């Protein structure tokens, strides 16, 4: 077994890395053995899973890794089908670079806002810079907190076309359930009908990133 490794990265804070990492991992766990690596010293992913009651743990193990994350991920590849790495909001530490180098695919959540788009350009450039030493590394933008009725959200398409890396066709909408599940240490996949729309959008992302 050798895992497919997804890094969720953007040096811009609050773009939705942890939210995407946790829900993506929960969704992927239906397809194979999945591990979340919390590479962020803030420890949000670890805290998220720690909110789950003992009788109903988060469906995926979450481990925190530090500067040795590249070699550790390499080691874990043998034991899992999917590894999802939640990166810190920084390019200044080596961790994001190490995580991306150890990955098969980088997912970059971006918010539909000018300031977030400008800042995310830096990460897109960093990805281009590591491609020569990590050939075959795939990368894509994932629009998060989309609000279909807002003019800016609708204007995203043209702006995303300016990035060197493509955007996934499936966006994530702004929904209260994404905030609520964190407090209970769950994912949208544990919800009943109120989670259906969110489940469908995470499932669509999984389809896109695991497809042929």
């Amino acid at each position: 077994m050798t895992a497919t490794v997804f890094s969720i990265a953007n040096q811009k804070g609050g773009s939705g890395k942890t939210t995407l990492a946790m829900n993506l991992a929960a969704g992927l766990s239906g397809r194979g053995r999945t591990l979340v690596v919390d590479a962020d010293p803030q420890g949000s992913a670890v805290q998220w899973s720690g909110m789950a009651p003992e009788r109903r743990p988060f469906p995926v193990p979450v481990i925190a890794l530090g500067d040795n994350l590249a070699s550790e991920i390499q080691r874990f590849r043998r034991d899992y089908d999917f590894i999802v790495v939640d990166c810190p909001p920084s390019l200044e530490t080596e961790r994001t670079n190490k995580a991306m180098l150890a990955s098969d695919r980088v997912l970059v959540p971006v918010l539909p806002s000018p300031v977030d788009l400008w800042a995310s350009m830096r990460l897109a450039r960093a990805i281009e810079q590591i491609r020569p030493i990590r050939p075959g590394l795939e990368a894509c933008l994932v629009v998060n907190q989309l609000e279909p009725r807002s003019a800016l959200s609708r204007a995203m398409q043209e702006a995303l076309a300016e990035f060197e890396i493509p955007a996934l066709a499936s966006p994530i909408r702004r929904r209260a359930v994404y905030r609520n599940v964190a407090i209970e240490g769950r994912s949208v996949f544990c919800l009943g009908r109120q989670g259906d729309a969110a489940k469908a959008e995470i499932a669509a992302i999984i389809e896109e990133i695991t497809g042929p």
Partner: protein
Amino acid sequence: MSRIASRLAQSVRQAKNDPPDPRTGRKATTPAGEPADAAGSVVTRQAPTREAPSPAPMPARRVWPD
């Protein structure tokens, strides 16, 4: 394309073509395209400033009762 879409796309293009220096965060040109001064700081046109009124003294307030 809507006006907002073309402005947003243009702003991203600008961020792409004129990235800040990764070390200093400084840009080579101003948003309007004028070169930055020798020290790299961007000189922008400023609106004339008016003397700010001095802030009214804050009454001392005890937040916590003794």
